[in-house]
């Protein structure tokens, strides 16, 4: 049986279930406890679980994320909220040198089962420093895992997998998805976990593959409907869900089916997840491509504030449709 939950509620339910499952799971971050979270993802959890399990921290991202890493080496399972993933910039050393490298540099003696989660997206009128899109940035570091769910069910299933994973997992949510609703399996029907590393076809199609992750999946699905309705193009939409591990097989499979690819990625165009996916496709499915791989990324500038124009900078259905149509 399935109920409808918002993306926000789905993550909260996942956190709540993991708090119940494992007494070593502890949530921490700025305003996650008494304030219920800046975006209310952790609403009610402090009241339910108390001071030990849900912890408000000072505005010291390097300090408390490093603290979580240290505690995890001893067996605690910290799930740390960055109020915005953009604030990774002040904790970067802890995120990429300590969390990513400590296992390696100790020859496998340490491990670091942390989750860092929070919203990572543009489109909310908060300007350039608050709108970084760091999936590709972190996936570039071996030792880290990254995922970016697009739907409530995926968000719940993946946050639970992330918490149980024994490696550092950076979990990228999206402010603009928090209010979206979708079906999520009922806990009464059993533990609902979606493994990292598994992409999902969100829409079957035959003419072109649109490959995306996070909110770009939702935009791609909207574009696919327009393509079908107005242009008779039947697009397949593949949701990566997890960036590292990455479901390369699923990527190659859809490419071999449609022979045409558009990648949709909220990153800036220099690099990002999509440049890597393009590299993999052209390397491993070269003979299956009928046209160059195209991308729809954010327009190459720091994120603009103006609400009048902000959504034009991001991938949106119109830009995706236009790009797909250039393939013909």
């Amino acid at each position: 049986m399935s109920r409808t939950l918002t993306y926000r509620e789905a993550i909260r339910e996942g956190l709540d279930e993991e708090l119940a499952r494992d007494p070593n799971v502890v949530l921490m971050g700025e305003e996650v406890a008494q304030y219920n979270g800046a975006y209310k993802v952790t609403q009610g959890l402090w009241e339910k679980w108390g001071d030990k399990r849900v912890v408000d921290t000072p505005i010291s991202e390097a300090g408390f994320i490093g603290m979580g890493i240290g505690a995890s080496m001893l067996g605690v399972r910290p799930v740390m909220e960055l109020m915005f993933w953009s604030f990774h910039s002040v904790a970067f050393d802890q995120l990429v040198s300590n969390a990513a490298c400590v296992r390696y540099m100790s020859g496998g003696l340490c491990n670091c089962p942390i989750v860092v989660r929070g919203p990572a997206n543009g489109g909310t009128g908060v300007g350039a420093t608050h709108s970084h899109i760091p999936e590709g940035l972190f996936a570039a570091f071996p030792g880290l895992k990254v995922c970016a769910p697009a739907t409530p069910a995926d968000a719940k299933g993946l946050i639970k997998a992330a918490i149980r994973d024994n490696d550092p997992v950076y979990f990228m949510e999206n402010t603009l998805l928090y209010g979206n609703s979708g079906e999520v399996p009922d806990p009464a029907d059993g533990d609902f976990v979606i493994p990292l590393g598994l992409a999902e076809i969100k829409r079957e199609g035959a003419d072109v593959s649109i490959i995306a992750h996070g909110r770009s999946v939702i935009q791609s699905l909207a574009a696919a409907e327009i393509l079908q309705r107005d242009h008779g193009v039947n697009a397949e939409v593949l949701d990566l869900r997890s960036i590292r591990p990455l479901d390369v097989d699923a990527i190659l499979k859809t490419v071999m089916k449609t022979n045409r690819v558009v990648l949709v990625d909220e990153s800036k165009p220099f690099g990002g997840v999509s440049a890597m996916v393009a590299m993999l496709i052209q390397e491993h499915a070269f003979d299956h491509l009928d046209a160059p791989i195209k991308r729809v990324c954010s327009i190459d500038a720091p994120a603009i504030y103006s609400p009048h124009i902000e959504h034009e900078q991001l991938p949106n259905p119109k830009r995706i449709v236009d790009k797909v149509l250039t393939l013909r």
Partner: protein
Amino acid sequence: MISATSSTLDFASSPINRSLTPARKIELFTQMVRIRRFEQAALKYYNGGKMGGFLHLYIGQEAVAVGTISLGGADDHFITAYRDHGHALAVGMGMNECMAEMYGKQTGCSKGKGGSMHFFAPDKNFWGGHGIVAGQTPLGLGLAYGLKYLGREGCCLCYLGDGAVNQGAFHESLNIAALFGIPVVYIIENNGYSMGTSQERSSAYNGCLAQRAEAYAIEWDVIDGSDLYEVRAKTQIAMERARKEHKPTVLEIDTYRYYGHSVADSRAKKYRTPEEIEDYKLNHDPITVFERRLIAEGVLTEELSKSIHQDAKNEAAASAKFADESPAPTVADISTDIYWESDHNTPASQIGHHFFND
């Protein structure tokens, strides 16, 4: 927050305040009123859906920006965090360009690219408006370093919140400021809360936050932010120390914000009691306190005060109209103001690809 041991000295008699002409006093009062009325208008239109993102109101803290910035000379510079409307108007920016910025319009001070958190006016020595908590503290250090390097006798006032003191960048800045003898004055605007977290729940300290300066052998002081005279008197000492001796200071100015952390703050009334807010309005509101004072001094009348309020209200309403009628940026505007060389179409900008849109 206003500390219990608030001073009973009268700072009206400090030389820096005694030198104020009645006209200048009215001007300072007017500036505070303008900030308040501007923000009340901003709140109204934010709630009316005219703006994106956050709106962090400065209401209740006006004496800090107006008092400190009133001391600035040609070579004194200012930089603050995202709660920046008060400082912007105090340095002399117009309501129009500020309101238009929040509306995300081309006529905004940052062409609609920065928004409420990112007001700038380098021509008025105002360097923003910065969204990353304490991220501006090394920049303020650098502005002051620049002044010393370039041989200008000035200082930089760098503002931050009580929650921001727990960011590493601030600590690094303090050590460098003391070590290098940098003319920077850090002003902690202590409104008692960082979002929903009280000072006690975010900071470990000895007496007060400014006292952290002692760790670096930096001078510090605590100021009652509801008294514009006190703000001016004590900040002036720090600025002179910076300008003349190239020595930094940390000032903690106790103040209060009436509203939530931002307008989106759903819990503003949960972590503070209505009594707490009411007490502040009655007894510590910097505008009311200064108004009473100026009336007692015979400088201001109630009538004049009313007309100042009315003028400010009108000016704010006009700025909203200006903003509303201004053109929005175009898609092409997204791609400018990224590189100086490209914006100036220099030879360097012609070589290689700077942008990677297809």
